[in-house]
């Protein structure tokens, strides 16, 4: 890693002519993992609750 602070690095990156191509890729990657994680949590909670309900009856 370089010695530049994160703010310096971000300012330098935002000034680059390709900034408009770079940030959407990172935003998309974060959104993809957030959605996959949310989907997994919702599915797991839903079926775990229903399976426990079935075991009780």
């Amino acid at each position, binding site marked *: *890693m*370089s010695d*530049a602070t*994160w703010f310096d*690095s*971000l300012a330098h*990156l935002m000034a*680059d*002519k*390709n*900034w408009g*191509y*770079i940030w*959407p*890729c*990172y935003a*998309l*990657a*974060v959104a*993809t*993992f957030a*959605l*996959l*994680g949310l*989907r*997994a*949590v919702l*599915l*797991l909670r*839903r*079926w*775990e609750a*229903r*399976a426990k309900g*079935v*075991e009780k009856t």
Partner: protein
Amino acid sequence: MFAYFANPERFMRISAWALPIAAALAVLLFAIGLPWAFLFAPPDFRQGESARIMFVHVPAAWWAMGIYTFMAIASFTGLVWRHALADVAARAAAPIGAAYAALCLITGSFWGQPTWGTWWEWDARLTSMLVLFLTYVGYLALWAAIEDETRAARLAAILCLAGFINIPIVHFSVDWWNSLHQTASIIRSGGSSMDKSMMQPLLMMAGAYLAAFAALLMAGMRAEVFRRRVSAAALRRARAS
């Protein structure tokens, strides 16, 4: 070994503690890898800052192929040894692999525009990766279309194994045909040509993608095992009444 891991009860016991560990590891690796790749890795001497897209694009490509290979092994195991969890594992891996393939295609397109001057080209690497994504979609559609789960599992496994022929095509496409896409610079004979200042954050991101896959896979498999328990109980009730 297969018999040991074929037991759903054992899987549920192991995954109950392995899932939070894998999820925590994924969060930790992303927390280090994302800022490292986005802000602190050096720009490429030819491509400049746009080469940063590599840190989200390349791990997505690697694991889109890796997950499909995992699915093919699980499908083969399910077809040959009737492994109790094989089709559960393959089915749970498919949406994650499809998301990784889509991420690879979209970020590749964003990288292609400033580098090659085009968002898309019908070139061997890009087209074979699109075929991989469509194979994932077809696999998921097949599971959704057939009500009888045993039949669905068998047909999906056959489709998965047939589609596996595309994996070496994706990997070697840049060597076999003239391509806009660069040839392999990391996984190649003669060793990596990448400097360690870029290789380290790339490997960190690849580790994060892998840990995320492990956590998402275990969550998906656990949900599927619970769903099958509910279905089995409903079937037992219907037969009893």
